[in-house]
């Protein structure tokens, strides 16, 4: 059965001293699909990518990537994958073109000059191609980094927060590239903090929390689990109680108060809740309204709903990794 999964991990564990970054990660990514690994900072996303790309050795558990065992056949795995990490992994002292030519050579690409020109053009770097990469903006570096990963078509592409902090142009270019790649049959595993990104790109989402996969499903399935975030702002404290009662009834969730702003909000359990219905019901109940909003669920909302929030969050795993 393993041949149908490009990435299949069972019980992956990794510790950094006292920090238990991964506590048994089970992940299954079908060939030719995009899997979005979604989670807050410190959930273990970066550690997962570093393990699955042979940069780290797991303390326990096993995984197969592109049909090969991660630890026993690391060289075979490396021949079939590409990685674009969070940190820039191109050589700043070389120009964009020199970087791509070097990685082309190391990947044994025949005629790397043609492929290099094609990628520079495609990622909007043709003009800057012969400038040292150290002069590039953050967005340009990220695009060059991705181009370096595509110098030959990988079977599995790993992207660790590919668009965090990027400008819209770079983000669109990277999203388009991911879509084109899957059309050619490449499997993509991408980590992200943005629900929207996972929504745009991923066939399946794995919600990672505190080193484990907390939930898996398609974006639609996850959205169905978590409705919109409704918020009502009122003029006086009495109205707040009334508004909370309406929200409680419509969303089926426990409302939370912000007394300072005179606001009450709740993440709806009912994905069909609409703004007109909300306004009509509040009006009928005689609640004096200042503002009513209904916005799509954020990652925070998904996490509040789908993960156990009573346990303390481990906040700094990713930071520690980066500092290491």
């Amino acid at each position, binding site marked *: 059965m393993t041949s149908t999964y490009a990435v299949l991990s069972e019980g992956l564990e990794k510790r950094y001293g006292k920090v238990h970054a991964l506590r048994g990660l089970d992940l299954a990514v079908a060939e030719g699909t995009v899997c979005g690994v979604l989670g807050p900072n410190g959930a273990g996303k970066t550690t997962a990518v570093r393990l699955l*790309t*042979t*940069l*780290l*050795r797991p303390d326990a558990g096993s995984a197969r990537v592109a049909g090969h065992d991660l630890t026993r056949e690391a*060289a075979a795995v*490396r*021949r079939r*994958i*590409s*990685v674009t*990490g969070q*940190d*820039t*992994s*191109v*050589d*700043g*002292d*070389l*120009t964009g073109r*020199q970087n791509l030519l*070097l*990685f082309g*050579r*190391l*990947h044994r690409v025949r005629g790397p000059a043609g492929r290099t020109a094609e990628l520079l053009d495609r990622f909007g770097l043709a003009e800057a191609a012969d400038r*040292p990469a150290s002069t590039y903006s953050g967005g340009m570096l990220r695009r060059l980094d991705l181009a*370096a990963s595509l110098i030959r078509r990988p079977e599995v592409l790993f992207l660790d927060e590919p668009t965090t902090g990027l400008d819209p142009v770079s983000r669109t270019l990277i999203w388009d590239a991911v879509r084109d790649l899957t059309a050619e049959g490449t499997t993509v595993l991408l980590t992200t903090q943005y629900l929207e990104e996972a929504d745009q790109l991923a066939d399946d989402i794995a919600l990672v929390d505190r080193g484990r996969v907390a939930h898996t499903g398609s974006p639609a399935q996850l959205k169905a689990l978590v409705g919109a975030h409704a918020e009502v702002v009122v003029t006086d404290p009495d109205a707040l109680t009334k508004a909370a009662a309406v929200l409680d009834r419509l969303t089926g969730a426990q409302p939370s108060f912000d007394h300072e702003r005179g606001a009450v909000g709740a993440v709806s359990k009912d994905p069909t809740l609409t703004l007109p219905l909300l306004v009509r019901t509040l009006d009928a109940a005689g609640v004096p309204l200042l503002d009513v909003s209904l916005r799509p669920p954020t990652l925070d909302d998904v996490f509040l709903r789908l993960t156990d929030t009573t346990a303390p969050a481990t906040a700094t795993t990713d930071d520690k990794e980066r500092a*290491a």
Partner: protein
Amino acid sequence: MSMLAYDGTAMLGRQLLRMRNNPGLLILTQTMPVSMLLFFGYVFGSALAMPGEAYRSFLVPGLLVATAAGGIMTGMFQAAQDTHRGVTDRFRTLPMSRAAVPLGQAAADLVATAVGTVPFLLVGLAVGWRIEGGLLAALGAVGLLMLFRFACVWAGIFLGLLTRNEEAAGQLGGSTFLLPLLSSAYIPTSGLPGWLRTVAEWNPISAVATALRDLFGNAPVPGGAAWPVAHPVAGSLMWCAVLLGVFVPLAVRQYAHGER
């Protein structure tokens, strides 16, 4: 092995491109030994028992070796810088030979050393240093110098991969400046008190400096009693073999394993 040769050549090409893109650094690193030759040669030389010109002839091979030992610092800084920048992570995920990255770095350093030594020797000639022995022996001296540099760079690469931090590597690397002070690079060891002389004579820099003085034919001062300086060429080869034997496997292992 052909994989190592291919990837190693690609990595050598990378390092040479970096030098070509950034020639300032190469020039800057070469101003140090030249200014030391002039300062030591004329300032310290005036206070030493040896006549000025003889001291400068003594100093040129010594500074060549001291500069070669600076390869520890260069190797360390570059390896730490690469790791710090994340480019090493990309190399580690590529299907390439594990030894190619450090090998490429060490080989490129040899090219830089060969290029950088030429202006230094020209200044040396200007201040009175001469090749006083045979041409073949002089070529042997250059070869020995390169071998020693190569060995020092490997030691540096290992230490750089170990520290993984540019600033720490810079601080630690700066202290390698002290190594030639406790050797016969700048002064004859015969004047040192007993135990300090023993330490200096067993410093690999002393063996290589003495060997270079012998091979270039500028050897008015005896190397010393310890075996490596009494047999300087054999002693130098022994030290290089030890350094390479220890640090090449360590560096390759450290590179391949990373932070695992």
